[in-house]
């Protein structure tokens, strides 16, 4: 039994965060105003995403090329962000190599 338990160990899996589809709205300070993401999605990761997106918008403005929309694609996730008066609305869409990305 012990041998079977070894192969069916699920400890690591429980630590994995499932990527979810949804959107978040953040103000210019990075405070989350609204979210359609499931509660299971860690708040820390939401903050991580929003703070980086806001910084990219802010830095772009400082570099004299203000941007209103960002499309960031990773192998497993697509992030689309629209600037909202200093804040942003951010859409998350998990993607898989087997599923064609929307809009491509």
């Amino acid at each position, binding site marked *: 039994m012990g041998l079977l338990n070894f192969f069916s160990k699920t400890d690591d899996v429980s630590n994995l965060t499932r990527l979810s589809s949804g959107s978040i709205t953040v103000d210019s300070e990075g405070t989350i105003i609204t979210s359609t993401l499931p509660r299971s999605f860690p708040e820390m990761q939401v903050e991580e995403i929003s703070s*980086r997106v806001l910084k990219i918008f802010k830095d772009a403005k400082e570099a004299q090329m203000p941007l209103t929309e960002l499309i960031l694609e990773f192998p497993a996730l697509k992030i689309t962000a629209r600037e909202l008066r200093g804040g942003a609305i951010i859409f998350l869409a998990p993607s898989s190599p087997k599923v064609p990305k929307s809009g491509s």
Partner: protein
Amino acid sequence: MRRFWQNDCCGLQLVHKRFSLDVPKLNDMSARPKILLLDDEQDLLDMYKEILAQLPSHPEIHLANSGARAIALLEAEPFTLLISDLRMPKMDGLQVLSIVRRKFPDLRVVVMTSITDEQYRSRAYAMGVDLFWVKPGNGEEMKMFQDCIASLLGQDVQSGGFRGVQSKGLVDIIQLECLSRGSSVLKIVNGTRDGRIWVCEGDIVDAQCGDLSAHAAFKEMLSWRTGAFEILPADLERTRTIFENYQGLLLDSAQSLDEAGDSGEPSPGGTPLTGLAALSRVDGVEFIVEVPTNELETVESWGVKNAEPYAKWTRESWKSLCELGEKLHVGDPVHFHGLGWQGHVGLDAKDSKQIFVGFARSLNSDQIREKMNLICSKWVS
């Protein structure tokens, strides 16, 4: 007197012919002329781009929505013609013209504006524009505008010429001045360089150009294909340093120029495009910056005057996205583009370099993705 004129003209035509022989070599532009359109209104830029694309020479048309951007593009590669609006924010058309005249004396310039004030027309012509055109209001005017631009592009490819005497070379101007047996000082300007030729009763008596004087100065000025000239009052007391007659002097100078041409000097128009300039051929690309991850290495750019702020943003953004990908366990970023009301941008990376590309506002998100893929495949190869 008349006979003298006719005989002289025959002889002088020979001189001019010799001089003209090396023109195609010096002006080895690609077959398609390149036009830079400058206007702060994107809709107008798009409209004129379509109209000018119909010209028989099928010109390559680039767009700029600010003076600074136009100058950056002109610095990046040679253009045949600049068509500029006058009324623009930050840097107006006259400011652009003054810079263009100084830095790009060979460039043909057309002002196209809705301003009908005669004062601006005079000022623009005084600054050496080739054509001042009020924005066409109907189909007929548009046709005339197209014809004029087509004619101007043809002139540029064929001849060059000094402003003030359309399509005349400096040789023609000197011949005319000497044939009239008059006395004057010819002031000749070519970009930041200028020089003077003293003519006394039809003879060239002296020349001065920077540190050069006499024959050397004369030859130097004769090598300028384009520029502007002005006839100043005669200086009869000028000490004579040139004793040859003007025909001998012109023949001698033309021969030297022929020899210089044969030595294979690279022509500005024929300079091969660098890697980034070649990537910029992709339609809709406005500028490109190649950013090494190592901040100590040089940033390469095309079509942008100061690439440093873009390079900084590119480095930081790409680094930030890589960190985000790692934290979310979604891998390294594979594609990144941004849309803005001034223009759009795309970003990608390979090994230790990132490439940052500026795109025209008229492109949509899918087009940017497609063009970024194309640019990256060429960039990597």
